[in-house]
């Protein structure tokens, strides 16, 4: 059985969906499924096609022709998807991520040749304002919609109350690091992980750090990730007098990420919106580190307030600073939260369960009885 996965980006690019798929898809392929990836690309150094961990990955410039209104480029991208599907005898389409132009190409492919369709929604819809009609069409065309958290599932039902497809909850799971962290956290070291975009709220973390300058002078903020807000964050840190204590690490390897998590005493997820799950919070739990996160979207499930970390109102540097101070002033309590997070993550966000859920979904959709349903557009 061959499945085409359409996603905004794929490894080695970093990001929540990329991290998840880089682990889940190779595992699915070891179970006898042929997984083929059609990923968007914005980088000129990406090969048009390559094999990563046994997965053929086709990089298709979804955005450029669409953004610049070039019909030839749009047709070429749509044509490439059809050729990939023909070459690999694709029987199921699976769109991961929801809020990028790849969904339009998936919709076009479905309109031209309906196949069983899965749409996995990874974020809530706050930033969209309204659901774009093409996005709604794609959701309505899906045989199964999956959501990475309860709030994401609720957001789908709120957006389309009469959605015919079932919305299944499949929480993200990452390979658990079996060994307990070997290093003790560096006292006062805070870590943020994610793209440096306005929505990730790292500027709020910098502001919180500035407010702790007097009471917690040894506090340091490390930020792993890259993005267009990097310079703005550097400027803000300088303005706030904490330039020497804010360290932008850029994109780092998985191994360096694990090391950074181990070194951190607290992991921050200060997102403003659209956080459907937060793999950063899950990775923190793997490393037995407590999290302070915005109490929005899927974060309220990934982080149990007062148990595995603390939730604070979004866009509130004062509240974030107070929460950081509370944890720094109680390192034993913070470490205990990290330990609980470690145990709970093993149960609730097990990698095998996540892989099993997607595998089961494909097997179900590939049954002849369900193939006839693949005609909703």
């Amino acid at each position, binding site marked *: 059985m061959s499945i085409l996965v359409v996603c905004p980006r794929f490894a080695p690019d970093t990001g929540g969906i990329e991290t998840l798929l880089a682990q889940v898809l190779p595992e699915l392929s070891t179970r006898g499924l042929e997984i083929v990836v059609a990923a968007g690309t914005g980088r000129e150094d990406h090969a048009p096609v390559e094999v990563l961990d046994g997965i053929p990955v086709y990089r298709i410039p979804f955005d450029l022709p669409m953004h610049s209104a070039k019909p030839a480029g749009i047709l070429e991208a749509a044509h490439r998807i059809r050729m990939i599907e023909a070459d690999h005898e694709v029987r199921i389409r699976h769109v991961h991520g929801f809020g*990028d132009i790849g969904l339009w190409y998936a919709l076009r492919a479905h309109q031209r040749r309906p196949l069983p369709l899965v749409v996995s929604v990874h974020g809530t819809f706050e930033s969209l304002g309204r659901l774009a009609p093409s996005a709604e069409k794609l959701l309505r065309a899906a045989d199964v919609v999956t959501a990475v958290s309860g709030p994401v599932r609720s957001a789908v039902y709120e957006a389309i109350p009469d959605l015919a497809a079932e919305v299944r909850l499949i929480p993200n799971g990452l390979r658990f690091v079996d060994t307990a962290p070997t290093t003790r956290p560096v006292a006062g070291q805070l870590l943020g992980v994610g793209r440096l975009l306005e929505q990730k709220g790292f500027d709020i973390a910098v502001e919180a750090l500035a407010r702790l300058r007097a009471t917690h002078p040894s506090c340091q903020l490390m930020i792993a990730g890259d993005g267009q807000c990097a310079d703005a964050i550097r400027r803000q840190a300088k303005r706030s007098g904490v330039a020497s204590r804010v360290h932008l690490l850029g994109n780092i390897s998985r191994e360096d990420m694990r090391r950074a998590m181990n070194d951190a005493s607290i992991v921050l997820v200060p997102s403003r919106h659209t956080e459907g799950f937060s793999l950063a919070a899950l990775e923190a739990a793997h490393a037995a580190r407590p999290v302070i996160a915005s109490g929005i979207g899927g974060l309220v499930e990934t982080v149990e307030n007062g148990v595995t970390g603390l939730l604070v109102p979004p866009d509130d540097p004062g509240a974030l600073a107070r929460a950081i101070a509370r944890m720094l002033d109680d390192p034993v309590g913070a470490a205990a939260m990290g330990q609980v997070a470690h145990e709970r993550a093993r149960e609730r966000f097990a990698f095998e369960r996540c892989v099993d859920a997607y595998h089961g979904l494909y097997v179900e959709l590939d049954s002849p009885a369900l193939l006839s349903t693949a005609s909703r557009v």
Partner: protein
Amino acid sequence: MSERGFSIRVPAITHERLDDEVIAINLETGIYYALVGPGADVWSCFDPAGSVGGACVVLAARYRTSADEIRADVEAFARRLEVAGLLADVEAPDPPAGALPVAPPQSGWASPELEEYRDMADLVLLDPIHQVDEAGWPHLPESAG
């Protein structure tokens, strides 16, 4: 007197055909359109200009049917394309129809369809990963880090 016809409203409309599919973009409204199979063939008959009668002759040969049989479909579709701002009414075009790409005759004419996408600007803008300036992707804004 020769039959009036339609022409594609260039430069307001940018369009391209690949195999059996046409993508047309109305640059005045930002609306994207897709036409497949018979719809794409009707489009090609009006590229750059053609009359309904001329188009019907060309299409009848391609679909192994009679021009009379498909005339109502072609006329209605041309009007729809005109209402969408894709075609303009013109004086008797010469030649009376644009050429179709070389392909074997098709069996089975079906009423042409026009897929309309009004939300492309929203889709491009909603993706926070791909924030770009007016120069378009992959040119990052100057403020990008």
